[in-house]
């Protein structure tokens, strides 16, 4: 059985911050502190649990075609965030940025997927892109709050 990444309930139970997510077990399968970017053509998008999966064909530096697996968030969570499962189709050209696998196999835990038209979609495990945007909004909200709002 290949190493899989994390699932729906993998965030730390205590206080969840983006950095705290490094404690979850995806670190056992992916080098969460590292980042790789691959570009390829989607062969299959599986909108499933415990993780959505994108299979894509990537041509390596030797000109050979390699099928990569990109793992994202739990499909149930993605559905709650408005995903339908039609976001990616075979033949789509995409760029995937995320954490590389620990064992060197062609797998990546995606953080962001960039579509051919430049649109960035999130949906990574634990929703890191959405989380970053949320933190920006919260910082703004915090700046706009009067001190009494926090009391």
């Amino acid at each position, binding site marked *: 059985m290949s190493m899989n990444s994390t699932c729906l309930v993998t965030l730390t*139970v205590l206080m969840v*911050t983006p950095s705290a997510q490094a404690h979850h077990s995806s670190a056992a399968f992916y080098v969460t502190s590292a980042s790789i970017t691959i570009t390829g053509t989607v062969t299959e998008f599986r909108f499933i649990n415990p993780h959505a999966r994108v299979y894509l064909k990537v041509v390596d530096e030797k000109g050979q075609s390699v099928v990569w697996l990109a793992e994202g968030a739990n*499909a149930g969570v993605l559905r709650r965030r408005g995903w339908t499962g039609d976001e990616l189709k075979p033949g789509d050209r995409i760029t995937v940025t995320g954490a590389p696998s620990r064992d060197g*196999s062609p797998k990546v835990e995606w953080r962001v997927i960039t579509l051919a038209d430049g649109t960035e979609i999130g949906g990574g495990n634990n929703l890191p892109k959405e989380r970053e945007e949320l933190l920006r909004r919260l910082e703004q909200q*915090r700046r706009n709050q009067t001190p009494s709002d926090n009391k």
Partner: protein
Amino acid sequence: MAEHRNQLPRRIFLAAAMVAVSLCWPLTDLLQAQERTAIQGFWSTVFTVPDHPEWRIEDHFCQIACLPIARQHLRSLLANPANDARPLQELGQEANQLANKYVAGLMTDAARERRTRYDPAADPVIRCEPPHLIMLVLAPPPIAIEVHDDHVIIHHEYWNTVRTIRIADRIASSVEGSSRLGSSTARFEGATLIVESRNLAGFTSQVQALTTTDGTRIVERYTASTNGARLDLELTIDDPASYREPLVLIQRRVRTPDEKILDIPPCEAISGTP
């Protein structure tokens, strides 16, 4: 005759009291029923509904569940003007460190050893096995609660699990073996729904602090806010073999009446490389 006359006011009083009681009894029932139904409805966490007026900043740092001490600490940090220049993420990390330290002090040596032995690759969720009750209760997808005369239904979107829990004053003593959902009974204390579960199988999860042994008792306490917009869960994990004191976690949900339970996509364990 005189004696009879003397008893007349007393009889009138008793009759009036009986009428009052007969009128008030249904009223008490009605009020009690109203209290109980306050928790009915559809409830979502910050993880699935991040935009809602009930959320405070600290709620966004508690996407699954929090230790009360950590939430309170983050709240204090946010309220202190000395921290205005510090990024939210840094404040969240500070609260998290406090929580980690607290739980580390609570865990028994046996629990620590269990965590060390834990193999994430063998986690039941990764293998698409249904979740343990603790993971089910804490899972961030929405829940729907219905209160009936003699039972409560909690429908968890996570794994599309429907729990039908009998309302009883005391939990049935049972000799049946332990299982992932155990055996549960419900009761009310005022408006608070209390679900107590026993005969739970032990488990160790990917969530860093959670590890329990067979026979763990857990208590869920659900209380709706006065305005009915928020549902607070206090989950107590009572397992002396794992924690020196019961571990208490809190989770907050908001009422989202326009939402509904969605079909969950299928689960497929990965069995090979691409």
